């Protein structure tokens, strides 16, 4: 079962599932395969994918971050208010978003490293903290009045084509970070650390530095993702963002990143998020109720974890005669 063909199938499982699900939904709804619907799906989910790119690095190292959505809420409200009160402009908003993303993730990482507890526990606490801060400074009110150039990021198309700018940004980062992860030393160190932290440290990999690197990368993409989200919405309130963490988490798992870390690829993650998106979109077009959609998504997530564990337990040990 180790032939080239079965290996290609296995490595691209998320894309195969994506195609199968798309075909199924095209029977339910004739509108599904229309170009405009597909562009809409991509456009609406570009920010989720960009966010997932960053969070994939965290999951790859064997950790789970639950605070992403609340980070986005806090970042979005902050840059919205800074723009409204101090007129920091598009560039200022982007820079501060990225900077805040990095700071919040470094804070999560530092707490996790210094207290020697999992990121899951840390971010359970900090998500509450970030949410509270976000509501406090926004006063639960929406903030708008973004500059036009800022709104274009999430609303305009790329130079007279029908492709939204957000989709271009998403593709650009997906490709760059896939290359970073698979081709560079730092990317491989992240895989190694996720697979076995002790072995990595003893092999001379700077585990702590690598963790902070992961924090920085995750932060950058959370910041960019926030910008993409609120520029598409045209305004921001403290409820913009929360919820994203679970979509991202499920998408990454569906994309083949192992819950134990050390395994998976970004191309799979893109497919994983799109699977979730198409499920929502397809089920809506097919007239499924919202509650039923939750049931379906829950079952799919269980299946994704189950397959991951099953594959691990059923790997054949290679022990052919040596010598």
């Amino acid at each position, binding site marked *: 079962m180790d032939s080239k063909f079965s290996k290609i199938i296995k490595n691209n499982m998320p894309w195969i599932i994506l195609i199968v699900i798309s075909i199924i939904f095209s029977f339910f709804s004739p509108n599904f395969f229309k170009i405009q619907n597909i562009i809409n799906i991509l456009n609406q989910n570009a920010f989720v994918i960009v966010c997932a790119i960053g969070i994939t690095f965290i999951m790859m190292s064997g950790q789970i971050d639950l605070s992403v959505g609340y980070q986005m809420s806090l970042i979005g409200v902050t840059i919205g208010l800074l723009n409204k009160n101090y007129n920091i402009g598009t560039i200022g908003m982007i820079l501060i978003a990225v900077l805040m993303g990095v700071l919040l993730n470094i804070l999560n990482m530092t707490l996790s490293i210094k207290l020697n507890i999992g990121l899951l526990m840390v971010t359970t606490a900090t998500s509450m903290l970030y949410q509270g801060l976000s509501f406090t400074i926004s006063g639960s009110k929406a903030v708008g009045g973004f500059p036009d150039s800022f709104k274009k990021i999430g609303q305009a198309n790329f130079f007279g084509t029908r492709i939204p700018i957000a989709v271009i940004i998403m593709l650009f980062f997906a490709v760059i970070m896939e290359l970073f992860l698979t081709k*560079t030393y730092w990317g491989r160190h992240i*895989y*190694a650390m996720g697979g076995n932290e002790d072995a990595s440290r003893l092999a001379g990999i700077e585990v702590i530095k690598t963790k902070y690197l992961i924090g920085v990368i995750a932060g950058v993409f959370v910041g960019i993702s926030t910008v993409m989200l609120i520029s598409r919405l045209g305004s921001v309130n403290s409820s913009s963002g929360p919820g994203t963490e679970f979509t991202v988490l499920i998408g990454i798992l569906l994309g083949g990143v192992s819950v134990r870390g*050390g395994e998976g690829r970004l191309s799979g993650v893109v497919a994983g998020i799109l699977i979730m998106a198409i499920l929502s979109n397809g089920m809506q077009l097919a007239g499924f109720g919202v509650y039923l959609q939750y049931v379906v998504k829950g079952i799919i997530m269980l299946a994704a974890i189950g397959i991951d564990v099953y594959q691990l337990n059923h790997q054949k040990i*290679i022990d052919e005669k040596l*010598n």
Partner: protein
Amino acid sequence: MNNDTILRISHISKKYPGVLALNDVSFDVKKGQIHALMGENGAGKSTLIKIISGAIQPSGGSVIINDTEYKSLTPALSSQLGIGVIYQEFNNVPSLSVVENVFLGKKIGGRFCPDQKLMNQKAQEIFDKLGVNIPLDIQTRRLSPAQQQIVEIARALSSDVKVLIMDEPSASLAMAEVERMLRIVKSLRDEGVSIIYISHRIDEVLDIADTLTILRDGKHIETRPMKGVDRKEIIRLMVGRELNETYPARTTPIGGPILELEGVSGNGVHDISFELKKGEILGLAGLIGAGRTELGKVIFGEAKKDSGTIRYKGKPVDFHSAGQALSSGIGYISENRKEEGVFLNFPVDWNITISALKKNSRYGFVNRKNLEVLADKMVSRFRVKTPSQLQLVRNLSGGNQQKIALAKVLALDTDIIIFDEPTRGIDVGVKQEIYHLMNELIENGVSIIMISSEMEELLGMSDRIVVLHEGRKMGEVMKKDFDQQKILTLASGIALEDKE
């Protein structure tokens, strides 16, 4: 410093709060020698190698490598100086490919991106040199323990290693694999690499070492050439006293069959038939992967039996859980003591009584008095060395942990014990005590199935040995016919020609 000395340990001490782990230890390691480092658990071997590898810093003294004195080292510096370490617990990243593990943490290729082709080529060269054939691109978790260890040796060789430290390299290998590993170690020595070889297994050390250093209680006892050293002498140096009759004899008569297996298959074993007699120690021999532990788990109800019959005291039984087997009087003591044998973070009495809670309770409420009595009885019966019943098992020595695992099983009225690697990682002195305990159990009417990878122990303790190979029974050897060669032959899957 002589020019054939490559590494000098000079007055090294290491203080921990309340403990002096190493006390003024000095000795030289010569170029191109296999230097055995022996001592009981707690003698300071691991602390010493951690100092040489830079994982911890000494409180005093220095390490001299190639005429340069180092008051302390870091992992990176130590590795630069040509010191490689293969730790006891395998240190591979299971999710990465073999080739990535060989070059873990190293930069082969350009400034930013590794060169996959070059890595493959270099890894293949190393494996060729070692004379082994391991596929380069598969995930390392799919390799057997023996192969994973070779990957680690390859990692050490991928940098220019001058001193290779091996901490209990044979602990998780079966007999034939140990032989191959020893061959590799010898060929490395012949190429001029110095090897510091830490092992509990005296036979291995007698076989390969050129020089012997013994540590006891953090102190350096002796460093001497292996010539003229025998097993007794090594034990005397390690323990500090004479130990006689390593394998104590038994006088208990062997009775009729208590457990009979007929064509048992499942959990990776096929068509196994044998019987265990009352008052007998039945040895289960075989290489790693032969299915010994797997068979033990089938008998114990931990794994599913697909076909065949198990008769216990004459009646067919079919246990679906460990709990059922335990309450019927069959106990299993795992080879993974720390994971499956004891609860490290719980106290002694808690550990001993955990299986016997139901027996000592009424209407679901446990009888504390009974449990206290039981725990006290067990601690004195097994001579567990612990300051109190409330001591966490984590803080006991390996031998005493093993006694606790045994006591836990015997807190129920147990008739059969499946004992998986009873003395793995246990000191010579305490080993004997375990053997005495096993004999005591036999005298009290218990029968034992002993799974072991140590040939000496199998031959010394068993009344009969059943040999498995790749999940099948290869043969059965009676005590009068015990012979190491015979068992090794069967274990490697070759049937004996002259079957009496």
